[in-house]
């Protein structure tokens, strides 16, 4: 199943993406992330490198560090 999971972006750089997600993922798993902002969008190939639980507003969430492997398509302005 290809599943879409909403995540909160904590920080982003050219090589890494740190997100807060509701469910965990295993280190080494590859996925894609679709980023949208003000009419722009880009889809990136990513690989999870770290995942650990954190408490956010009393709820358990997972901070996941992804390595950015590259874009799947070109960003649109």
């Amino acid at each position, binding site marked *: 199943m*290809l599943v879409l999971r909403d995540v*909160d972006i904590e920080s982003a750089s050219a090589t890494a993406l740190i997100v807060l997600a509701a469910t965990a993922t295993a280190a080494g798993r590859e996925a894609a992330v679709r980023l949208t*902002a003000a009419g722009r969008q880009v889809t990136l190939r990513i690989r999870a490198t770290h995942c650990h639980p954190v408490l956010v507003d009393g709820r358990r969430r997972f901070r996941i560090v992804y390595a950015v492997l590259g874009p799947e398509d070109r960003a649109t302005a």
Partner: protein
Amino acid sequence: MNWWTWRDVHGAVIERVEGRLLDISASGCRLESASTLEVGSVGVIEIRDLERPIAEAARVCHAIERPGAFARYVLQLEFLPLPLEHRAPASVAVCTGDHSVVDQVLPGLGERSDPSPTNDALTAGVTADGTAQRVGEAPEIAPSTPITETAEALANALNYRRPVTRGRMGHDIRCQREPSAFSGTTWIRADD
């Protein structure tokens, strides 16, 4: 402008989760997986090992944990009214359905006139030793829930170009489950 300099970024991770199909009906299916999914997540389920594969947009209704089982989670999914390119193979009978999405939440199937064992099985969980057990009621889904909007975003991300249709499902896949002669798969065959 580089994407990492964008402000107010919204992110959606698209991940492939493998699972083994346990049951399927017109409105949903149940599969076991080593990974769990958040209830409410939407995605596209691809059912292989058929003459032609099926792809259906689906939403996770239940995620049941089975500690100690090899496939630790049982996921119950409902199909969404999102037409996809490869939705039903020719070998599967397709007829007009008259069930709204809300009516097709999995536990509601027991109230329908079709008392097929597949439908009954959809409301049950499976314990580690393989015996069935009842699970709780599915969360109520209001018609205003923006499921299709999320699914539409997913479909765009996956390059499914067909537009989203709201409202009724409009199709009914009839199939029956047979004991699997194939390791690790459940074989599904159309009506016969």
